[in-house]
């Protein structure tokens, strides 16, 4: 394992992208940072800029307008980078599968490392997903 990847697993910084989610997935994600779940204990930090991030958490089924931006964000992320598809929308477009403005799901736009299904996934599920991902790459 590269040194960089090892460092990443120690304390993954995440950047959150909403590509057309209904807000719930986003709120549950932020919820994981607040006192009840508090993932900061494990060094997981939500950062404000993609250039500082190790992992990209994508919520929402990727609308046509968001797709090129998601691609650009992915390209800007420093390597090695991980992509987490959070929520049914991100995994499969969910209930919006036949919408005319949906370009997704996420794995059609950028490669995805782990899928966390649920509408919305509970914070426990999100944490579980991240832990599984770290185990996978480590």
């Amino acid at each position, binding site marked *: 394992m590269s040194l960089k990847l090892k460092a990443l697993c120690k304390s993954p910084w995440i950047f*959150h*992208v*909403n*590509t*057309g*989610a*209904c*807000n*719930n*997935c*986003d*709120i*549950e994600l*932020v*919820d994981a940072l*607040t*006192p*009840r779940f508090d993932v900061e204990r494990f060094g997981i930090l*939500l*950062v*404000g*800029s*993609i250039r500082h991030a190790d992992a990209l958490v994508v919520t*929402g*089924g990727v*609308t*046509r*307008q*968001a797709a*090129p*931006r998601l691609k*650009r*964000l992915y390209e*800007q992320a420093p390597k090695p980078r991980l992509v987490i598809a959070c929520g049914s929308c991100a995994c499969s477009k*969910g*209930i*919006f599968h*036949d*919408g*005319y*403005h*949906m370009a997704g799901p996420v794995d059609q736009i950028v490669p995805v490392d782990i899928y966390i299904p649920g*509408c*919305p996934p*509970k914070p426990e599920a999100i944490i579980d997903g991240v832990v599984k991902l770290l185990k996978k790459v480590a």
Partner: protein
Amino acid sequence: MKRTIIPIGPYHPLQEEAGFFQLQVEGEKVLDIDVDLGYNHRGIEKICEARTFDQIPFVVERICGICSTSHPLAYVQAVEEIARVQVPERALYIRTIIAELERLHSHLLWLGLAGHFIGYNTVFMWAWRYREPVLDIMEEMTGNRQNYAMMKIGGVRRDILEQDLPKIRKMAEDLRPVLDMFVGAVMDDPVIHARTKGVGVLTPEDARRYGAVGPTARASGLAIDVRKDDPYAAYDRLDWKVITGESGDVFAKAAVRLLEIAESIKIVLQCLDQMKPGEIDTKVKEIPPGEGIGRVEAPRGETFHYVRSDGSNRPVRHKVRAPSYVNVPTFKATCIGQTVSDATIILAAVDPCYSCTERMAVVDAGAGKRPVEQYDLVAVSQREGQKMLRSLAGKVAQTTLEKKLAEGYRRIGWKAC
């Protein structure tokens, strides 16, 4: 002085959702603001026209996660108007309880985010912590922390069990001292006063001109609330007040929301007292041709749904108007002339919700070249808060906020670990 354009977004830590703002500034002053949305447009109205009447509540629930009761409620009311359904009494009370619990958690969420934007992360963490019991109750009652799937044409989908009633009552009563703590903390803190009083004032005339709704309008002194003006569910049987502010600034918006939490607690407790056992659902056979509207006071303002039926099993037209759609343009009235560091909290004070707003958008295919650069406005705003804190440090030993919160904590007997 040279004009500079500061792009915010579309992906920006300031927002949970994607939205693109351009601030035109001269030095520190904001001269103009431009909003460009469409990142969240999913074409929900069109999707709804391809679903049957009974499936649509699940789709409209996912317009916005925070208002996942208001949209389905407005929709079922519209369909009930077409089919002339008499909803059973108990179902009306259950609808009211769910809607008010949603308002509780939504306002707490806003309070937390507002605290975060002015640099008080303590408020953010605490507000979100006290939101959890509300979500727990929701999970117990409906099976999900969000997206409750309770609304149904003709009634509600699940009954509230007898054994859940005391739990709801306890949760609501436990929230009261917490609210007192927040009210005390926010109303007395000198830094919060300095950051929010007289900032981003929306005059009553402007509020009326922009058609603002919900807490945004009520903070400017307009007493509009669908729950009073056009009562639905069980609101006309309950005793509660419409909260209004006067000054229309960020402080007033915060105060209105905080006091509304108290009203919501009151409403929930009354519902629990008055609710009688009974049916929760009427059978609706078919939806005749016709058109109907449903209005609901969502946490952010009036949500409006229009449904037209041609007698088949799906609507021919479904139109949604969400509150943020009219509240977002008020930025034009409130932001201009303010400083950049205040822009953040002014934007946040409206509690904009783009996933609600964006069902209709003209998509400009050529608009691909947008700067994704981020200017960390939140950080600017937070630094401003810290600066004030320091400048006040000589005068107030420990900030009132922290003291109040600590004292409130002692009262409710919660120990920090």
